[in-house]
């Protein structure tokens, strides 16, 4: 009998590790602008995420829910009630604890005019996925993926000044002085030919001179005169030169 009760007790102990589950009752969110007009108010369904939320620079997001034990429905204050903001693209994360009353009621307010320091840096194009982490010593831990939210762009996370040297740096190309420009070769050839022009003049005049003087010279051949020179007429230019 005692052995049987011991076995039953040990079975109970074993099944006791399968602790009771937690759940949320009536989770709701409200987005209102700075002058308290309500922009969007919806209950959050844990089965299907609502459409992504968008917050402007002065909007306020209010989140309310109650943490209850799933089977009995009574309110519970878990040890850990954290809201996790996670940017899937950049990997930045922010954890915000939520104060829960002993009856399990929780309220969280996010005012973009005075954002909490736990928010991660955001970009203008990527949303933050918001999930609720509930952890407790007495109940099974549970994580609820609540919704995606688009927040205004923030300053990027500050970087160490040396951080750039741990990645490839931009390429630097030296701009060289332009190659010495020379005039086109045909022009140089033309002017070289011009330089030789006086030789042409000289040759031409020499030939003319030889032709003009030739009749007035004696032509010798074989120790004898072949043709005597013509007489110079005094009034002609050649005699006067």
């Amino acid at each position, binding site marked *: 009998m005692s052995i049987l009760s011991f076995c039953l007790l040990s079975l109970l102990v074993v099944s006791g590790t399968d602790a009771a589950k937690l759940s949320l009752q009536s989770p709701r969110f409200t987005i209102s602008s700075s002058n308290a007009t309500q922009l969007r108010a919806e209950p959050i369904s844990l089965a299907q995420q609502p459409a992504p939320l968008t917050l402007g620079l002065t909007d306020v997001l209010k989140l309310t829910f109650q943490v209850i034990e799933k089977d009995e429905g009574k309110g519970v*204050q878990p040890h850990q009630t954290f809201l996790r903001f996670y940017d899937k693209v950049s990997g930045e994360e922010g*954890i915000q604890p939520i104060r829960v009353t002993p009856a399990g009621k929780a309220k969280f307010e996010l005012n973009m005019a005075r954002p909490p320091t736990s928010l991660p840096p955001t970009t203008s194009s990527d949303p933050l996925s918001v999930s609720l982490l509930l952890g*407790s*010593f007495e109940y099974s*831990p549970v*994580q609820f993926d609540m919704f995606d939210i688009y927040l205004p762009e923030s300053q990027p996370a500050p970087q*160490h000044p040396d951080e750039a*040297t741990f990645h490839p740096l931009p*390429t630097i190309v030296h701009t060289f002085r332009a190659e010495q420009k020379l005039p086109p070769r045909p022009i140089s050839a033309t*002017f070289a030919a011009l330089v030789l022009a006086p030789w042409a003049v000289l040759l031409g005049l020499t030939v003319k001179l030889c032709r003009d003087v030739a009749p007035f010279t004696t032509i010798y051949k074989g120790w004898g005169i072949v043709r005597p020179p013509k007489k110079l007429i005094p009034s002609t230019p050649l005699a006067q030169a």
Partner: protein
Amino acid sequence: MIADYAQDITPQSLVTLLEKGSNLLVALPSKKQTIITSLAPEFSLILPPPGTPLVSHFPERDTPVTVVPVTPLSSNPILTPNTPPVWFSGVPFAYGNNPLLVPILNAPAESFAADSGSDSGADAVVEAADKGGEGLWAGSQMGLVAGFQALGGARATWVGGVELFSDEYAQKELPQGVKPGNTQFTSDVAAWTFQESLALRIDNVTHHLVGETGPRETYTINDNVVFTAHISKYNSGKSAWEPYSGITDMQLEFTMLDPHIRTSLPPATGNAGEYSVTFRVPDRHGVFKFIIDYKRKGWTHLQSSTVVPVVPPRHDGYPRFLSAAWPYYIGAISTSIGFVLFSTLWLAGDDREANKKFAKTTKTE
């Protein structure tokens, strides 16, 4: 637990050891504050308030909340890919803004640092967020094992608790029912810390003109120069340095006060471990340096600097016989030829005998 250390173990002596090239593997104490706790901020690691170890309710398991299974990232170059989750117990720390830190193991997203033991401590957890300067110690931005690559080449690894290395944790079964990765993880961490993995060195660097083989004393501006570096990686299996061609993003800087040229230094095809690039020396003369400064997280820093003077061209280094000077060449040559020709004609053409005869014949008439 050793609370007091020997006389010669002080934070200053540990830092001196690191400067001289010794590698350190340091585990933080979980309960007491020792000199090690005061040394951690020097490495840009911010510790949580005393008495707040790492706590996680996730995943559901039958160990105390302070014993946490953590999954290492497969993309970390220090660890073997697909290492199973490791058991961890100790303190987390936050990373300061220091690029020399190499995160090895980060805390799970659902974990946090707390000192409460029951659900009634929930309010204390929320108040801790408002108290401390860094806010609530929670999330995957906290580190559990972090490496530090000092500028001198030594490595120091900080672990949040010593129990990670214990046999008990290496044997304890994970909630999923598989064996934990503590053995694999700790041997990877020790291999990295003691310069057995991801350790590189530059064997030698050479430079020469394109077409030559030996280096020159000086280079002239606008020269084409080939720069070569040989790099090895330590192979702990063979306990030897082997040529390594796996670096794809190394850069070479040709610097005189500021980098004038920065190009990539790619691995050369053919020779293992050789990285080579050909470039044109800038048209500024001066004293330049070939600088390699390769720093990447987890790898040894590679630094090399070779000084080389660059001079302007010598008087006969400029281009000669330009096409624009053809008229001048022709002019000079034609002047010389003309002079020679004229001299010949003048000296040879003066016929004295013929003149005398002419004078005689005219006189007799």
